[in-house]
């Protein structure tokens, strides 16, 4: 076009970012890459191609890591671990700082390479991904510096196996690698098969930061390579970001292996627009929510919920904005939406949309040939529509309307996922009321897709567990520094040859919904004293009793809204009432276990006091994120916690589990000590007299190996803890995969219940919700 023609048309022309340096880097490696193991690249093996999705051109051949490769990488990480774990925090901080600086110094190379490998617009890789990567390493340099002083008594886990997705290849590397290294762990990272290049560049550059050999290893390959990393017995921790279906498989595969696990999975995040919102800004927010990175974002605001009265106007504005989006060459600096990562993903998106019953609006934009999909809005859907429930992972927004704030919350939470949520309203009362009610690990008020290293990110429900970013993210790479002893099975006292029978029959029942209940199955077991006296009978609960108890626990969810002060009062009152019957409880322990019970009762009373104290003191945080505003880290109860209580400490074990759970606002289903259940059944009488609302604590006695499965598998239980002396850790972790509930199991290790209290328990009883609140008029 001549200048005159352009002057008349005022069109955008090409504005290409040069890829010369990136191509030169690929050429230096002759377009072939091995793995990065023990500080050096291995010779390429079993290579496969990685392509530029925008052009289809082959960028490089990378290696398919075999089980043997993974073993080699893990062995290198294992060798490097002791020295790296001992390296002073300050020294680790220096190296992380150097990594941050190196990312900045090579920022454009990283950005261009990322865009070539992934297809995302250069604006995003240049202005969002890479700066966030540098920020993450800076922030974690600081955590490494402060760790020893701020988190005494914590130790690194060992070798971390990290499997990351293709949508933010380098950023997800940073989110995984930075906290692992800061905490003193070593790493085997498996980047996604579509997008391995920036991880390889990072590995190469890490040598200039002074990272010791073997501390960071990168093994490329497909899902099989990832599975080998996950399965390796020397891996102490698995961190995965990716789809919920793969996350579930990883949960099942690692069950019982005593591996720490964090999962950051899929989402169908609601984007709620109230009628008093700044509608234009909310429309613009959607551009950043669902057309950011072609919608291939786990926390994409993909489910629009708009208040009915403004829906038509909002959709009109939205369509107009969609028409203005520019789709095309991701290396062009004037492009809003780039290429879909791979033809396979494009086909997935295409077929999902094709099957929708909604009204489909495609942006009136030129769609280049190749791996592109136009920004799309689907309206007229209902909650039951497939696309309202399932993640599309593409530039497709689905929309429906709501009438009231209450209905907005119900619709928003009507999903298996719980990763993120956006809400738009100019009414601060409404915003601050709604944010805590949303089942989401991250809530953005009048904004979307805001990220920072200081603010925790992660999901609830089937969006996974664990947080990345902030101190809470670092804690996922540490463990309490204590040596564990194996837990021996604790058996019930067997029926004596010459039973001694009491004058009065005693029947211990289950405690469900505030009522004493007979076991559904109608079976009981005799409980004998250590000296052979019949102490009474205890009901043998079954799966239906678990079902009833979970229902009762849900019915009591108002407990989560009680004030901390109120919960504290009730915990103190439980302690008071237990104290009044201390002698009786001590005698019961003596009868059951043959050991003196006074100390255990006293410890239980103290423990109740401890959590009464904590109930209004487990504080969240106000994160200094780089916006005008704040990111609030709120400790929220998980919901319903199921627990298989310790066998060896019949009263203290139960109280140690129950008290932190209810202090934080959870309700619970407790399966008490299997051999010594009568302390628990005595204890419900204390609960009954302590003003504890019905259903907050439910007690189902019975066989741990029978009750563990229905409890851990129950899809409406949010967390399950297992401290049983029956080896059930593997079963609990495996069964938990159904709804990806949080698990905490003993892996057959003993614990000293006399000292088992405090923040470790509180953290297990809560999820951190990060609420971003920008402000300014």
């Amino acid at each position, binding site marked *: *076009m*001549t*200048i*005159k023609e*352009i*002057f*008349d048309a*005022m*069109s*955008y*022309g*090409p*504005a290409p970012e040069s890829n010369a340096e990136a191509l030169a880097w690929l050429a230096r490696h002759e377009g072939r890459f091995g793995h990065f193991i023990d500080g050096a690249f291995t010779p390429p093996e079993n290579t496969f191609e990685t392509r530029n999705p925008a052009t289809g051109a082959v960028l490089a051949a990378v290696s398919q890591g075999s089980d043997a490769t993974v073993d080699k990488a893990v062995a290198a990480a294992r060798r490097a671990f002791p020295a790296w774990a001992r390296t002073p925090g300050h020294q680790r901080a220096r190296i992380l700082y150097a990594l941050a600086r190196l990312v900045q110094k090579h920022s454009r190379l990283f950005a261009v390479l990322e865009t070539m490998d992934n297809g995302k617009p250069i*604006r995003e890789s*240049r*202005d969002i991904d890479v700066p966030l990567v540098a920020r993450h390493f800076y922030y974690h340099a600081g955590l490494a510096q402060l760790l020893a002083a701020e988190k005494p008594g914590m130790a690194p886990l060992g070798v971390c196996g990290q499997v990351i997705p293709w949508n933010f290849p380098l950023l997800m590397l940073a989110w995984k690698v930075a906290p692992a290294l800061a905490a003193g762990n070593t790493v085997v990272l498996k980047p996604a098969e579509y997008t391995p290049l920036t991880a390889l560049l990072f590995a190469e550059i890490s040598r200039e930061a002074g990272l010791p050999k073997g501390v960071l290893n990168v093994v490329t390959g497909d899902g099989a390579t990832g599975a080998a990393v996950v399965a390796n017995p020397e891996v102490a921790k698995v961190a995965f970001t990716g789809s919920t279906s793969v996350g579930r498989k990883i949960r099942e595969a690692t069950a019982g292996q005593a591996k720490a696990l964090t999962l950051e999975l899929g989402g169908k995040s609601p984007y709620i627009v109230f009628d*008093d*919102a*700044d*509608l*234009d*800004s*909310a429309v*613009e*927010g959607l551009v950043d929510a669902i057309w950011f990175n072609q919608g291939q974002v786990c926390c994409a605001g993909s489910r629009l919920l708009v208040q009915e009265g403004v829906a038509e106007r909002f959709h*009109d504005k939205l369509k107009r904005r969609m028409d*203005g989006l520019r789709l095309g060459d991701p290396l*062009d*600096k*004037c492009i*809003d939406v780039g290429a879909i990562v791979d033809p396979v993903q494009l086909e997935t998106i295409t077929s999902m949309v094709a099957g929708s019953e909604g009204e489909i609006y495609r942006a009136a934009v030129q769609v280049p040939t190749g791996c592109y999909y136009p920004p799309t809005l689907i309206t007229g859907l209902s909650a039951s529509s497939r696309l309202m429930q399932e993640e599309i992972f593409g530039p497709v927004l689905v929309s429906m309307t709501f009438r009231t704030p209450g209905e907005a919350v119900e619709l928003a939470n009507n999903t298996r996922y719980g990763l993120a949520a956006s809400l*738009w309203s*100019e009414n601060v009362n409404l915003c601050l009321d709604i944010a805590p009610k949303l089942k989401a690990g991250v809530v953005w008020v*009048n*904004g979307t897709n805001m990220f920072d290293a200081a603010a925790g990110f992660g999901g609830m429900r089937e969006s996974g567990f664990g947080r990345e970013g902030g101190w809470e993210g670092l804690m996922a790479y540490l463990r309490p520094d204590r040596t564990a002893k194996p837990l021996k099975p604790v058996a019930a006292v067997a029926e004596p040859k010459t039973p001694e029978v009491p004058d009065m029959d005693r029947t211990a029942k289950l405690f469900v919904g505030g009522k004493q209940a007979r076991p559904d199955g109608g079976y009981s077991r005799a409980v004998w004293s250590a000296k052979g006296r019949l102490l009474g009978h205890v009901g043998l609960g079954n799966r239906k009793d678990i079902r009833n108890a979970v229902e009762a626990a849900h019915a009591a969810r108002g407990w989560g809204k009680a004030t901390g002060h109120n919960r504290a009062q009730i915990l103190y009152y439980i302690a008071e009432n237990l104290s009044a019957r201390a002698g009786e409880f001590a005698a019961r322990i003596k009868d059951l276990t043959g050991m003196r019970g006074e100390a255990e009762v006293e410890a239980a009373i103290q423990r109740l006091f401890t959590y009464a104290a904590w109930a209004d003191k487990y504080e969240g945080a106000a994160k200094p994120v780089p*916006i*005008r*505003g704040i990111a609030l880290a709120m400790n929220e109860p998980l919901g319903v916690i199921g627990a298989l209580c310790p066998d060896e400490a019949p009263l203290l074990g139960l109280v140690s589990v129950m008290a932190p759970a209810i202090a934080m606002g959870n309700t619970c289903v407790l399966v008490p000590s299997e051999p010594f259940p009568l302390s628990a059944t005595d204890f419900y009488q204390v609960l009954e007299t302590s003003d504890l609302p019905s259903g907050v604590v439910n007690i189902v006695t019975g066989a741990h190996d029978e009750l563990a499965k229905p409890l851990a598998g129950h899809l409406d239980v949010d967390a399950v803890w297992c401290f049983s002396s029956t080896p059930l850790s593997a079963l609990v972790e495996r069964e938990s995969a159904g709804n990806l509930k949080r698990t905490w199991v003993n892996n057959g290790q003993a614990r000293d219940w006399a000292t088992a209290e405090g923040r470790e328990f509180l953290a297990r009883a809560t999820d951190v919700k990060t609420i971003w609140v*920008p*402000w*300014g*008029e």
Partner: protein
Amino acid sequence: MTLMKTDTAGTGLLPTPTHARNAGMPLDLDWVAGVEANTSAIERRCATLPGRRSVKKEYQAAWLLKAITLIDLTTLSGDDTPGRVERLCAKARQPVRQDILNRLGMPGITTGAVCVYHEMVETAVRALEGTNIPVAAVSTGFPAGLSPYALRIREIGESVKAGAREIDIVISRRHVLTGNWQALYDEMAEMRAACGEAHVKAILATGELQTLRNVARASLVCMMAGADFIKTSTGKETVNATLPVSLTMIRAIRDYQARTGFKVGYKPAGGISKAKDALVYLALMKDELGHAWLQPDLFRFGASSLLGDIERQLEHYLTGQYSAGYRHAMG
């Protein structure tokens, strides 16, 4: 309702779109009260704007030439003299060295208008004879707008009589700050009436309105009362045109058009001095409002030093070498 023929600086180069002049509408206080503007979100959008759009090479040259045709070349100083204004008008006629324009294939472009105080209107009109470059007069007790109301209205008539085809009025900021929308509406409507056939640009003095919500509401009320253009600033406030203010006003223009069908023009003024800034504004107008708002009948820059930077950029485009200010004629 009169149909306005777009003036395109008489070059014959430009398309001549027509659109209905804003006839205004009754004051709708519910609409005004319902306007929301979320400052943080607007700022975030604006912060990413320069990174989202990039115009290079011949496209950049063409866009910068377009920007020139949208400039209200302005002098608003106490020491303005006829000689100074004549020099400015000469620059408006010939904004870029002829050899540069010839090489770009755009020989006849001029600036969008010349903007002066009332006392300089006749001088400017004379100096621009033979062109289609309109003279704009700032008016109504510019810049504070606190002289007697009757005199402010009369001042408009005087400037129109002197040959001004565009009148840049200042609103009474106190009406906005006290929420007296009726008073603002009445004032604006009377000023519009006083302009007659001359087009009226309403200067909101956004730096003094302080909040974007105020800016959005004042924009709407002025459009309801018949403003042909809404304009950010006098150039005399401590804060002048900013991207967040612009986005807020542009969105108001879009909503007003959606509701009434009338297209209202936009003029950011003050603080836009770099060619790169001008490109960002043009992209903003193109993306938010569309092609019609890239023409002088719906978009102007109020600027004095912007032209100099554009001249240097154009020479750089042709030679590949960075230019110097003294190589281009003063205005």
